[in-house]
């Protein structure tokens, strides 16, 4: 079995568009959440959202490349350019070697809505244009990036709700570990537009603390009342140690465990057993005890039941309850299909800079979150050798990834 390492990171998020910007936001506990009045006009229960402007790709990509790229694909392109650069992978390398892509994405709603609006108005499919179909599919990110970067390895989108990005990294880890691939561009992308969020808002799952948006998302706090939708994209270059060593690439961390499970239970209400099994599986694969974890990046989105059950699941596996836990969603909002990938990046940033980012907006635990050690403030000078990152999604899909410092 091969060792699997991470050699490049790229991010386009509400708390920063470079690793350095994100590092500062995480350290300072800066929120990327705001209020969108348009959502209220549309009939949303909550106008809260991550605030993220779309990049202008004119001049960076040819017209044909841009026409098929959806909003989340734009973010993914920006993140991937940076990740490839850090990994020292250029187009010449991509042309001469087999490099794959496994990216998490589970919607591209705006493109569907726009195509449908043209069809309703014009009553002629020929007037939808050539980009509609490519932008509308869940695989829009992988189809665009694989053609832009002329990739020749595995080409696959992972759709697993809010665990999509995490499973993409886990599956890449398995493919490289088993020798089927050497290098895979991994990540997760998430559209932020209002058109894509209405049906989720309709479930009543979003926070309604609209008077102070940056204090709205309160994972694990007793007063939490829902998640805040957000998005962007995060890319990691995952490759075999041999490949990274041969290329002289920087080694930013080693993936040592990937646990997965399905709750076999309710479509939207998570349980305790499924996440517990995923975390235990990751620990077994990594061949470490829970006491070997220096930090846990929780999935915790700030929904009442979700956080409650995750706190219980973490308490089940962390024997001494001293391991610091934080949900970076308190700052970013819920990055959904992207979150499993971005949160590995956030945790790697903490690992490289010896701190634990705070779980902001936390003032009082409930009877469940009091069982775990939540980092309510930035933990400075905190060494992280090994961390675990949780991601859970609708349908009861769970993913837990363990990464350690490369030694």
């Amino acid at each position, binding site marked *: 079995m091969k060792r699997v390492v991470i050699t490049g990171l790229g991010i386009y998020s509400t708390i920063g568009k470079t690793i350095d910007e994100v590092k500062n936001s995480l350290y300072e506990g800066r929120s990327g959440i705001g209020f969108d009045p348009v959502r209220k006009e549309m009939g949303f229960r909550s106008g809260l959202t991550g605030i993220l402007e779309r990049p202008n790709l004119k001049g960076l990509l*040819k*017209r*044909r490349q841009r*026409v098929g790229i959806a909003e989340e694909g734009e973010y993914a392109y920006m993140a991937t350019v940076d990740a490839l650069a850090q990994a020292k992978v250029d187009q010449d390398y991509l042309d001469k070697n087999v490099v794959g892509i496994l990216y998490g994405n589970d919607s591209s709603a705006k493109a569907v809505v726009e195509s449908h609006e043209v069809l309703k108005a*014009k009553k*002629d499919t*020929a*007037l*939808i*244009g*050539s*980009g509609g179909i490519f932008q509308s599919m869940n695989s829009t990110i992988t189809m665009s990036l694989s053609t832009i970067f002329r990739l020749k390895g595995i080409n696959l989108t992972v759709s697993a709700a809010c665990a999509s990005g995490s499973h993409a990294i886990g599956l890449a880890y398995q493919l490289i570990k088993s020798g089927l691939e050497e290098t895979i561009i991994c990540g997760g992308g998430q559209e932020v537009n209002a058109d894509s969020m209405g049906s989720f808002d309709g479930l009543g799952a979003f926070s309604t603390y609209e008077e102070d948006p940056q204090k709205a998302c309160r994972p694990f706090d007793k007063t939490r009342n829902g998640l805040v939708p957000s998005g962007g994209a995060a890319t990691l270059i995952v490759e075999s140690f041999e490949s990274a060593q041969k290329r002289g690439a920087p080694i930013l961390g080693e993936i040592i465990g990937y646990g997965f499970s399905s709750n076999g239970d309710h479509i939207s209400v998570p349980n305790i057993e499924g996440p517990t099994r995923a975390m235990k599986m990751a620990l077994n694969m990594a061949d470490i005890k829970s006491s070997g974890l220096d930090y846990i990046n929780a999935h915790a989105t700030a929904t009442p039941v979700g956080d409650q059950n995750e706190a219980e699941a973490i308490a089940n596996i962390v024997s001494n309850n001293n391991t610091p836990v934080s949900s970076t969603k308190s700052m970013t909002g819920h990055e959904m299909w992207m979150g499993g990938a971005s949160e590995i990046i956030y945790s790697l940033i903490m690992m490289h800079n010896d701190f634990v980012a705070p779980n902001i907006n936390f003032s009082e635990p409930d009877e469940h979150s009091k069982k775990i050690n939540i980092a309510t403030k930035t933990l400075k000078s905190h060494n992280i050798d090994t961390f675990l990152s949780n991601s859970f999604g609708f349908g009861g899909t769970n993913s837990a990834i363990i990464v350690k410092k490369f030694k």
Partner: protein
Amino acid sequence: MEKKEIIEKVDEFLIDEFELEAEQLVPSANLKETLEIDSLDYVDLVVIIEKKFGFKVKGEDFATIKNLQDFYDYIEERLKATAQ
């Protein structure tokens, strides 16, 4: 619409939307080989022509349009037919 105006409008969207250079837009320029307009671009041409000139192009009409001059002539003919 005068022919001159048609040419200006076509050239304008080829430069703005298709990112072609003004000096490439000579009447003899072959759409596929010289201007590299591919099969998917034709789908977008239909959308743009409808927006700019107000008529719908049938995909098969493009079969007889080889170069820019053919394209200008085709639009002029269709506009005349629409006006009648």
